[in-house]
């Protein structure tokens, strides 16, 4: 049997009261606010990784530690190898990813809007998705030899299917209600793509470009590794062949660092800007 009483118990008078957010804010010590902030989490994550790296390098001879890698990087700078090689890779990578983004968004929108295009392109895109970057790297070296074209095409071919798949998926998810509204008012197709489809799939485009960057950098590195002609991949292979793993790792760390900074300070900001309507409340 359940007894209902209107007499407050001692427990309900202390446990039952919920504090306001202002009270919680006032009662939280400053050190705790700093330690539980986002920047603190990021710094802690970075420090944890460096610590892990130090430990692993101390345990295994063939893993160069952060200090050795840093020293190799400084040496490469002083030899004047960094700007030329890094610039070449950046150019090839940038052109390849930009092409993949433009072509991927166009094809993805087409596949998302047209059933016939989807039926026609679905299988080739699936095949392209399953071909690893190393295969494209070999093929483009055979087709285009040394120089910029091979790495650019490899970057493009490895990354474009990911942009296409993401964007096509996004376009298929565009609100049916808004598409019907546009059809009812006979809105021209160009305006529908610009004002309805592209803003609706911004998140999917961003995800596609992120994939393109991650996959594309594998492609450019492998093409330079096998194709020579300078670049980050070429220098990484130079040190690898010389059995100097610190030199090899220095180039990888340099490019990975660049990708992380690109993601955080360019892509993230661009995404925030394109979603500013969500924050306007």
């Amino acid at each position: 049997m359940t007894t209902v009483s209107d007499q407050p118990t001692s427990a309900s008078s202390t446990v039952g009261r919920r504090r306001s957010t202002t009270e919680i804010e006032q009662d939280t010590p400053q050190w705790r606010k700093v330690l539980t902030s986002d920047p603190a989490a990021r710094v802690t994550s970075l420090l944890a990784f460096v610590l892990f790296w130090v430990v692993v390098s101390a345990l295994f001879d063939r893993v160069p530690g952060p200090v050795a890698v840093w020293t190799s990087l400084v040496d490469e700078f002083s030899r004047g190898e960094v700007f030329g090689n890094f610039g070449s890779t950046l150019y090839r990578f940038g052109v390849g990813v930009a092409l993949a983004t433009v072509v991927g968004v166009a094809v993805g929108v087409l596949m998302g809007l047209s059933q016939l295009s989807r039926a026609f392109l679905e299988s080739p895109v699936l095949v392209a998705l399953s071909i690893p970057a190393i295969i494209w790297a070999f093929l483009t070296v055979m087709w285009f030899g040394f120089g910029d074209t091979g790495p650019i095409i490899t970057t493009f071919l490895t990354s474009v299917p990911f942009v296409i798949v993401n964007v096509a998926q996004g376009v298929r998810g565009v609100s049916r209600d808004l598409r019907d509204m546009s059809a009812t008012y006979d809105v021209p197709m160009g305006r529908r793509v610009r004002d309805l489809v592209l803003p609706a799939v911004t998140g999917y485009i961003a995800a596609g470009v992120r994939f393109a960057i991650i996959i594309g950098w594998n492609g450019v590195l492998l093409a330079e590794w096998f194709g020579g002609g300078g670049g980050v991949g070429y220098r990484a292979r130079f040190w690898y062949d010389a059995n100097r793993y610190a030199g090899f790792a220095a180039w990888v760390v340099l490019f990975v660092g660049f990708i992380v900074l690109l993601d955080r300070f360019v892509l993230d900001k661009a995404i925030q800007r394109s979603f500013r309507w969500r924050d306007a409340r």
Partner: protein
Amino acid sequence: MAVLTVTNLSKTFNLGTARESRILDDISFEVSGQTFVSIVGPSGCGKSTLLNIISGVEEHTSGDITLTSDAGGPARMGYVFQDPRLLPWRSVMKNMMYVQDDQSRDTVARAERYLDMVGLKKNADFYPGQLSGGMQQRVGIARAFAVEPDLLLMDEPFSHLDAITARGLREQLQDIWAQSKKTVVFVTHDVVEAVELSDRIIVLQPGGLIYEDITIDLPRPRRQSDKAVATLQADVLARLETLKAMAAAEPVAEPVA
């Protein structure tokens, strides 16, 4: 003046295994220019399907729909949906312009004029998410009028709003309509709303047949507090009750093979 003619219109949905469900059954009616017509009837009688077919969003199985305009050229349609259907990433003004044929200065001025008529000119730069549901629906109404349609379709545009907001918008709609005199086909399940707004009420019955076609000859503007309006509302409601009783006695026919 635009004239909408619906002739022997039928719509069936294929349910698979050689079965189909009939939503509209050989209905015919005509809406002449500058008339406000409401389509009422119980849920599932095909009101919204009829509107979607007229707008071209849905295909019809048989019959004919024509919309003729004195102005010549293709007839223009406006549509106010149950929900506002605004692009959330575009400002109110850009939403107004999204559906316009041309983007000239005159069109911008016209869009501003209709925004002003619904009291939202000062909110032109706001995103839809910054407006209340009622304000968003007012943008939807302004957008539909701003295309200067030959025919304006409205699908229960006030059904998602609270009673007070809906009443305010109904009064606003009457004022705008009195100025623009567009041909309107208005779907609602609310008889009170239909009587207040319409020149004519077409009552659909389950199975997609026209049960009754009622002409309303009351002076405008009408308010719910008007005695004549209240009397007619009671009368139409009584007729709908009879229809409901009939429908209950004779359940909707099973899908035909």
